């Protein structure tokens, strides 16, 4: 038996459907009619993605401006280009995926988990290439300070991103939280690269990069809690 023959059998079987009550359909249409009014569709994905990227950049630059641009001042031109172009690409990808998560039936090019893995690996690769000082002075204390700074900055970035996309509807709130958290985390990493003048390789590789997965995990937890709440109601 060939695929075409299986097709025919399935086609024939799919023709016999259980009937639905016309009264039920009428009731649904009437209930919709009672609150029917024109709505404005969401803007295109590129506009929303651009808005998210702008929010992330604005939050990172504003925080770095307040704390000082010590990090970027001590980087060479090619190091600046390499680090910030990578961050820019990752922010754009995360923003696009976040928008997709908030619009039902959007096209998916990669899974959220794959994005997180590839994004973290890309950051590790770039940092490993740029930073070659292998000392570990104040590894824990300086590292935790950077991690907390990055995570604290992710909070306003996540909040502003949510404000921009609040009209969306997350089909999978955990995945949306994960990618939203990753996006906010990337804003935190951008701020750290602008501000932090600690160029020890392990410090940057461990503590700066950790902001993204930790923030993504926190976002996924928020999504999971929200899903639980909606399941209760």
């Amino acid at each position, binding site marked *: 038996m060939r695929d075409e023959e299986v097709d025919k059998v399935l086609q024939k079987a799919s023709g016999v459907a259980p009937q639905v009550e016309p009264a039920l359909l009428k009731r*649904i249409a009437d209930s919709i009619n009672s609150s029917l009014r024109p709505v404005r569709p969401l803007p295109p994905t590129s506009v929303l993605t651009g808005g998210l990227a702008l929010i992330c950049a604005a939050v990172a630059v504003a925080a770095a401006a307040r704390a000082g641009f010590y990090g970027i001042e001590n980087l060479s031109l090619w190091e600046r280009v390499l680090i910030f172009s990578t961050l820019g690409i990752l922010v754009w990808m995360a923003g696009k995926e976040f928008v997709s998560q908030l619009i*039902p039936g959007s096209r998916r090019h990669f899974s959220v988990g794959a994005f997180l893995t590839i994004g973290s690996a890309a950051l590790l690769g770039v940092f490993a290439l740029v930073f070659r000082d292998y000392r570990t002075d104040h590894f824990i204390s300086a590292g935790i300070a950077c991690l907390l700074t990055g995570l604290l900055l992710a909070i306003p970035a996540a909040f502003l991103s949510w404000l921009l996309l609040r009209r969306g509807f997350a089909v999978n709130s955990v995945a949306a939280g994960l990618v939203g958290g990753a996006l906010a985390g990337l804003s935190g990493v951008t701020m750290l690269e602008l501000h932090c003048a600690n160029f020890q390789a392990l410090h940057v590789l461990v503590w700066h990069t950790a902001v993204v997965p930790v923030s993504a995990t926190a976002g996924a937890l928020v999504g999971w809690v929200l899903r639980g709440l909606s399941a209760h109601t």
Partner: protein
Amino acid sequence: MGIRCGPVKSYGAAHRQPKKLANCNENVTFSRHAANTLMDSGSNLNTLMARYQAGDFAAVTALVECIGPQLHRFFMAQSASRSDADDLLQETWLRIHRVRHTYRPAEPVLPWIYAIARRVRIDHYRRASRTTAREHRLEEESDAAATLPREEARTDDLETLLAPLSESQREVIRMMKVAGMSLEEVARATSSSVGSVKQKVHRAYRHLRDRMNAMGPKKGSSGGLP
């Protein structure tokens, strides 16, 4: 006369044949005139959805009439009772109504609707699994289902045919055969990649082919697997 509302593609010939149109439930009569007027004027689901967003009640009526039976069948395939499927259908339309602004006029409608319908079904399952009396109710439901006549319990030939497949494979085949969605549209509705959907369809077809071959060509071609 049925309402023409969506494309049906075959997996084997999906890349070669032009789109065919499938008939909606023949038994639906309400507001048929309004629906036919909209459809006959060359409108499609995208146009109807755009009119729905603009607040056109005739478009809402046509959409509910056109997609409602498909969605009902989608829920019937997985719920133990018709009343559950009715509830899920109503809940889906309420949710569609609430988030109708998230539909983009240039995008396909069916993946958008089925993504919401899947969410409603998952939420319903989660809610049900949280209730302490779940096991008790399942026992009652299975007893009730067992007492129904065979035609009532499983009137759907397609579901009988798909019974040996895994849930994810059944879902994909249902979307393709009942809703007439393409591989790309199914991928969008299920939040997965086209490759993953292709793989599920391929495995499902292989399973069905083996099963039909094992049963003999006569039984297989009649579509009446036990």
